[in-house]
């Protein structure tokens, strides 16, 4: 399916420049083509046949897709949508390398592929292949420096036995208040299986029946960011089909980026008569973990001494518009001190696969971020999205802070606090 850059969308930009200071890549590069206004003007020039899409490949590739430009825009320009159209056009003339496309389509793009990847990664770690691979510098040779850096910080993943023990549903502790469907995600569930389990535990204690609908897969964000529009649509349809039958009150995810993609299925499928209504119903039910916990709270929590700070997930903040709930949860931790991270709303440089494909720019942004974390004096840096989690693990290590600062997902922190308050519920 050929995706065009929409004239209506690009014309909405009045070129006021209000988005410039919000853009991390403009701040780093200081040239207009690295700014939102510049990128829109370039995509408009492509739409008007004044430039070829390949002329603007670099500026598009250098965009984090963090969408910090959207809340800064007085005219309500939907930058994310324009970017996806631009990237889709680019993908037509500059397809992804075959192996990457294959991985997107099968490893991340099907439920079976996700299971396989989780198993393969576990095996890789179990067999200590990583030390061999690192010695040979294999990852860097195949996937570049970005992938190699990431490979080094991936924590030990859950074993197939742990995964097999996962139930398809977890009943509410006490009276049932809501029926919640849990969206596991691909990378999040592969690498941070525990985090998902912790989130489920917290939700059941708050009176939710939590179900894990079979047939769910990847949210499709990785596909649409790469311009693989058709693959993204395929993921969306699969997930909608998997979730809509259950009649759930909410659909919850722990990854800000996945949640944002789910919440935008209504836009993705708006022009598809068979799916538009179903997508709208689906998106309207989506909630981020922290958002729902705050809504259902207050939740009894035990002592959690330490200094906590929080890095926004761009898509959680700019797309899902969830900024206060995770902070409020952290501020409510008994015995803990919360310090706001200066410029927490600025991308950490992970930006989905950006940390792999644009490693140099990503590292510049990341190092800036780690410095800010150091200045807060925090002992725990809390995150709310999977790529940010990996990126900040790398950043903290690069900055030599690994001994002082823990990087944890908000669900892991809240689950620990909740268990401290009521350990009896552990078996739930």
């Amino acid at each position, binding site marked *: 399916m050929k995706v065009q850059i929409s004239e209506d969308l690009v*014309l909405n930009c009045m*070129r006021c420049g*209000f988005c410039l200071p919000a853009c991390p890549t403009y701040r780093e590069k200081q*040239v207009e*083509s690295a700014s939102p206004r510049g990128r829109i003007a*370039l995509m408009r020039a492509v739409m008007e046949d*004044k*430039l070829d899409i390949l002329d603007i490949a*670099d500026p598009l590739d250098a965009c984090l897709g963090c969408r910090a430009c959207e809340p800064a825009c007085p*005219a309500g320009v939907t930058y994310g949508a324009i970017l996806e159209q631009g990237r889709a056009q680019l993908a037509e003339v500059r397809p992804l390398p075959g192996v990457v496309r294959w991985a997107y389509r099968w490893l991340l793009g099907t439920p079976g592929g996700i299971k396989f990847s989780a198993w393969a990664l576990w095996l890789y770690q179990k067999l200590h292949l990583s030390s061999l691979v690192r010695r040979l510098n294999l990852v860097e040779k195949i996937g570049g420096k970005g992938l190699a850096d990431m490979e080094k910080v991936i924590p030990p993943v859950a074993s197939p036995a742990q995964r097999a023990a996962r139930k398809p549903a977890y009943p509410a502790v006490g009276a049932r208040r809501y029926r919640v469907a849990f969206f596991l995600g691909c990378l999040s569930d592969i690498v941070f299986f525990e985090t998902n389990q912790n989130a489920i535990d917290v939700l059941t204690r708050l009176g939710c029946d939590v179900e894990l609908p079979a047939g769910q897969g990847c949210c499709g964000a990785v596909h649409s960011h790469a311009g693989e529009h058709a693959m993204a649509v395929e993921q969306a349809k699969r997930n909608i089909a998997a979730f809509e039958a259950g009649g759930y009150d909410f659909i919850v995810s722990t990854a800000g980026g996945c949640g944002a993609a789910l919440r935008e299925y209504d836009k993705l499928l708006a022009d598809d008569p068979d799916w538009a209504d179903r997508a709208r119903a689906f998106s309207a039910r989506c909630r981020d973990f922290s958002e729902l916990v705050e809504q259902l709270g207050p939740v009894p929590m035990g002592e959690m001494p330490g200094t906590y700070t929080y890095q926004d997930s761009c898509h959680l903040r700019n797309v899902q518009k969830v900024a206060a709930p995770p902070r409020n949860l952290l501020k409510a931790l008994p015995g803990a001190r919360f310090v706001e991270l200066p410029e927490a709303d600025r991308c950490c440089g992970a930006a989905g696969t950006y940390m792999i494909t644009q490693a140099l720019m990503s590292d510049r942004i990341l190092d800036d971020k780690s410095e800010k974390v150091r200045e807060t004096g925090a002992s725990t840096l809390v995150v709310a999205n999977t790529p940010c989690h990996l990126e900040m693990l790398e950043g903290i290590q690069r900055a030599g802070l690994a001994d002082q600062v823990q990087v944890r997902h908000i669900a892991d922190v809240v689950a620990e606090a909740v268990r401290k308050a009521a350990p009896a519920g552990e078996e739930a």
Partner: protein
Amino acid sequence: MLRPEILSALQAAVGEEWCLTSKADLVAYSYDATPLYQRLPDAVVLPRTTEEVAAVMRVAHEHRIPVHTRGAGTNLAAGTVPAEGGIVLSLNRMNKILEIDQENLTATAEAGVITADLHKAVEAVGLFYPPDPGSMTSSTLGGNVMESAGGLRGLKYGVTKDYVMGLTAVTADGRIFRAGGKNVKDVAGYDLVKLICGSEGTLCIVTEVTLKLLPIPETKRTALAAFPDMEAAARAVSKIIAARIIPCTLEFMDNGTIRAVEEYVGLGLPTDAAALLLIQQDGPASVCDADIARIAEICRQEGATNVEHASDPAEQDRLMQARRWALSALARRKPTTILEDATVPRSQIAPMVAQIQRIAEKYRLDICTFGHAGDGNLHPTCMTDERNKEELERVEQAFAEIFAAALELGGTITGEHGVGEAKSPYLEWKVGPVGIELMKNIKKAFDPHHILNPGKLFAGETRKRVVVRQ
């Protein structure tokens, strides 16, 4: 296309990385915030220091290449669009605040510093830089100086030119000079500083500015008043000033703007009101309280149907919302937003707003007006679609008539946005043939070869003056 030897001379001046010539980069510097204007430069050069600017200008001078200086490109007069190609000289990398002098109450900063960054830096030490254009989170000090930008606080505190004490600049042939300084009093020769303020990049390139600072006012109070007709609101403005109160902000929104804001954000504004006045006073708490109470009283006397006032910061913020959302609400209505700034003496606001409404009806256009009632600086804003060529014709005619109406009322074609290319056909209406001749001679003295921002201020042809039927 620049010849290879010129390009390498420019690269030698600023470093290869900061001399851009790719197709994409040229497109990215072909526009500013002015709708409908776009032209490609031949190269974009981003210097880091005054010396680099001078080196670039020596190359441009030698080869007679046009140079269009650019800050953040937020101006609304096509001031940075490279009308005649050549070089776009972008100063956004010159972004260091050099000094905040707490004894002399001055700040010295490079031209590319973002206005709001300067605000933050001086406020951190209890000082105050009043000019606050709506674009301050992205505009640069250089751009502000070159347009003599105003803002919401203009009524009480004046505009950018009232704060520029000194500057460092580069001439068209690449020599560096300083004008003014930190002296409060300085009458040594012509006042070059004031002359350069508002010169829109046509006389020289400013690389550093020294700005006057004030102590930060102790506190603020805010009021919002709704009026059933425009005349009542205008009378209230005059009475407030006549009562010897100069509020720091006295903003106005017409009915169209009120409805647009209400539709968009739903603040509970009275959509049947003909006008809203938003008034803010700053200073010592007791003075603010007294002033705002008196202002509220005057508004009621003049027929305001609803007056709210607040001292609590959150409440004040809520009242300010209405004005803050004005442009956003209007900009979302249609793809193209044309924001003008015809200005009249304060006493002529009501007739001017009536004229704008009449003209909008005559040309069947969607024009809403908001702006700075306190200083007569109005922003008639036209929502249109640049794809509709027939409507654009009408927009142009309507604005010509609006400018003529403003002049008729003793006003001007632009209060704070500048002339640039967009309003150059109207400049002579305001300054007359002698004014134009004097200005052209000044231009010649600074820039004999016409390489600094050519195509701006002076039009090839002045538009025929429209006769306004009263």
